[in-house]
């Protein structure tokens, strides 16, 4: 029977290797403390730089915001004015010739065999939501059955009249006596509608 007696205290023990356990533990603590310090300082630097950046951006915002608000206000005013101008230009002539020119063109297309009883040219506005309708309406008497049809064709072929009220239609025709006929010709075009 072998008996082994260890007379060394625990603190007096020595181990094989480059460094002792105590050195390893102390260096680990040192490394941990060091890295913790680095992490905390990095975080603090990041925070400080973020705060500085926020302050700088905020100052820039305080300087720029009234100027930008004024520019925005001017842009809104400019857009409103432009809208008014567009509306006024569309309202004035509606993309077609003035009325005096329409009447002159109608006069040129009316044949000698036609006697006008009524001529109406203008704009019909039925409702606030409906676009205005340009209308030309002629009624009267003609000598000869086909005169109204020929006149309708001539009026439709006339560019100025067509731009104003679109195609002219013969909406009514009837014999008054013998070769004398009554007629109604009409053209209508909504303002948005592009003449074909």
């Amino acid at each position, binding site marked *: 029977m072998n008996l082994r007696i260890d007379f060394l205290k*625990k*603190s007096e*023990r020595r181990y094989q290797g480059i460094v002792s*356990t*105590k050195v390893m*533990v*102390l260096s*680990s*603590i040192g490394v*941990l*403390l060091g890295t*913790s310090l680095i*992490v*905390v300082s*990095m*975080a603090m630097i990041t925070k400080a730089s*973020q705060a500085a*950046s*926020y302050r700088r*951006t905020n100052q820039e*915002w305080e300087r*720029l*915001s*009234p*100027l*930008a*608000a*004024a*520019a*925005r*206000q*001017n*842009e*809104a*005013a*400019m857009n*409103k*004015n*432009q809208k*008014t101008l567009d*509306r*006024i230009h569309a*309202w*004035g002539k509606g993309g077609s010739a*003035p*009325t*005096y020119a329409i*009447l*002159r063109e109608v*006069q040129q297309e009316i044949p000698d065999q036609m006697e*006008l*009883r*009524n*001529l*109406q*040219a*203008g*704009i019909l506005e039925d409702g*606030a939501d409906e676009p205005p309708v340009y209308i030309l309406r002629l009624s*009267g008497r003609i000598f000869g059955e086909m005169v109204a049809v020929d006149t309708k064709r001539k009026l439709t072929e006339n560019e100025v009249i067509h731009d104003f009220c679109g195609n002219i239609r013969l909406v009514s025709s009837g014999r008054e006596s013998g070769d004398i006929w009554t007629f109604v010709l009409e053209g209508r075009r909504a303002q948005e509608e592009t003449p074909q």
Partner: protein
Amino acid sequence: MNWSAFTKKQQMMVIGTVVLAVAQGFLLIHFLGGNSPDEDISEQELAQLEEKVEQARLMFARSEEIKKSLAETITELEDLRTYVPNRSDRYAWAYEYVSRRAVKTGLELDRVDEIMYVGDETKELEKQVYEISLSTQCGYNKLVEFLWRIESGNPLLRVKDVDISKSPDGPDQQQVKVVLQWPAVLKIERGSNE
């Protein structure tokens, strides 16, 4: 490694090391991970603020161009405003405009009436119009000349309706009714004073 082989002091050191390692782990997660709700908000706020500043900068960069365009629209509208009936005495303004041109044409006006519609006041200001109707008896050519004079003298005038009927007085004379319109107001936006 045998735990019992460590002295009490060494054991405390090991425990301390483990605690420090855990604490460092938390610190890493806290500062570098950015998971704290407070930090999220401030980063988000900074990003939003930077975006707002960028937009303001872009708007400011266009401010001179906008000012110039605004001034152009104001000038154009001010020039057109002279063609809108004067609000304080619209009928007299329109009557004078029409009568002067009728005299120049050699045409006698029988009536000039202001037209009012029920509910006009409730319409949007921009959609309100001022209307007058006039009636006369004249030849077709005179009517065309009269319309030419009034339409070419005012770019904002619109002939709403012309109604020409045969007159009992003879083939050279027609009964004519004309309705004329103007925009009631021409609102001009002037933008910021700055």
